[in-house]
């Protein structure tokens, strides 16, 4: 049975934990706001890019990055967080990735991984998957340049014929409390029906083919970049709600422990009183 002192210690420790989780929640909330801002300011760029890309691609169909071939090997870009303590954020991604590996295995497609974020790498490093490249501890400093580095690795391998398909798996941001796991085919670039319409006549400088050649990798880069931004915002959102829950739980625990402590204290007072009374009775007798 726990003594009075043990319970007091316990309460003090839970209170400390509660302070930490509360602080983490506030930090996550602040970071979330910034991440949301980044998503919003990145949107005009990616939308315009998409618009121009689509109109170009509609005119000149022939490019290796647009052609689909029967897949034998595929590459999955897995975007996770660098740190834990954000609820099921990473676990859900890992589970989805596992499921994806199983699906493709059934179709006898071999899948290799490229991990962004430490957690995904930690998880798959000990499993029977090839990790072709890893980017650890980068989620704090997401940049357009980073997306470029990832994409240049991927496109090079794709164009060399090493992989026939490239996917990206990440948590996309809906709201602070809702993250949606998104699996998207990055390469070959799938023609999107609605966006696939030719636009007004342009003067092209240099030629259309050359433009397309240059534009396609950039388009992929933008897609990866938005994926990364989404993932960062989702991570902070997930951490915020996880820490919120932890703070509430700690509060509940403190309440229960305090109740227990009080009961215990009264009990011991009662016992002491009984003893005194008993002693007095004995003396009288």
């Amino acid at each position, binding site marked *: 049975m726990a003594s009075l002192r043990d319970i007091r210690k316990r309460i003090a420790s839970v209170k400390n934990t509660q302070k930490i989780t509360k602080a983490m929640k506030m930090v996550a909330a602040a970071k979330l706001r910034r991440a949301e801002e980044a998503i919003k300011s990145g949107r005009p760029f990616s939308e315009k890019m998409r618009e121009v890309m689509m109109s170009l691609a509609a005119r000149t169909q022939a490019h290796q990055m647009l052609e689909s071939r029967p897949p034998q090997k595929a590459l999955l870009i897995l975007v996770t967080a660098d740190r834990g303590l954000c609820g099921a954020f990473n676990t859900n991604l890992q589970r989805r990735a596992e499921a994806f590996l199983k699906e493709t295995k059934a179709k006898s497609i071999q899948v290799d991984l490229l991990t962004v974020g430490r957690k995904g790498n930690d998880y798959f490093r000990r499993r029977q998957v090839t990790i072709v490249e890893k980017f650890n501890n980068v989620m704090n400093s997401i940049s*357009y340049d980073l997306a470029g580095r990832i994409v240049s690795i991927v496109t090079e391998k794709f164009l060399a014929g090493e992989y026939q398909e490239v996917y990206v798996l990440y948590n996309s941001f809906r709201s602070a409390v809702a993250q949606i796991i998104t699996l998207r085919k990055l390469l070959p670039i799938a023609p999107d029906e609605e966006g696939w319409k030719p636009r007004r006549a*342009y003067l*092209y*400088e240099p030629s259309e083919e050359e*433009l397309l050649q240059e534009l396609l990798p950039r388009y992929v880069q933008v897609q990866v970049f938005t994926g990364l931004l989404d993932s960062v915002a989702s991570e902070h959102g997930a951490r915020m709600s996880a820490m919120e829950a932890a703070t509430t739980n700690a509060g509940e625990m403190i309440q229960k422990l305090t109740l227990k402590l009080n009961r215990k204290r009264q009990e011991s007072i009662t016992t002491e009183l009984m003893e005194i009374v008993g002693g007095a009775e004995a003396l009288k007798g």
Partner: protein
Amino acid sequence: MAEKFKVELITPRGIVLDRMVEEVIAPGVMGEFGVLSGHTPMLTFIKPGIFSYLESDRFVKYVVGAGFCEVLKDSVTVLVEEAHTAESIDKAEASQELLKLEKELLEIDALENSVQYERALNRIKVAKAKISLAGGN
């Protein structure tokens, strides 16, 4: 006074510039070009360099990274990887960056890794443009 048209300068970090101007001069891959209102629709690449626009007899300059530019009859949209105003550039910092980038460039094998090489080259061009713009102030 020349007729005005809309120009937008957009980077992945957000919209840098969105206003009505009289003239735009941009560094295209086929050479620098100027745009006035009523230009033929055109699509071209931008190479790292100095982008400027004219508004009430004054040129305002930006350092831009690689990207592309869509010219329409009454608007110009420039999408670039980065853009900096003259005020935001610290010359000493830019020189240091240039030194660092040049060192990095030497370590990249141009034949083996052409994409990376070109990327590094572009960043050097941006740094150089920054220095020249900061020097002009």
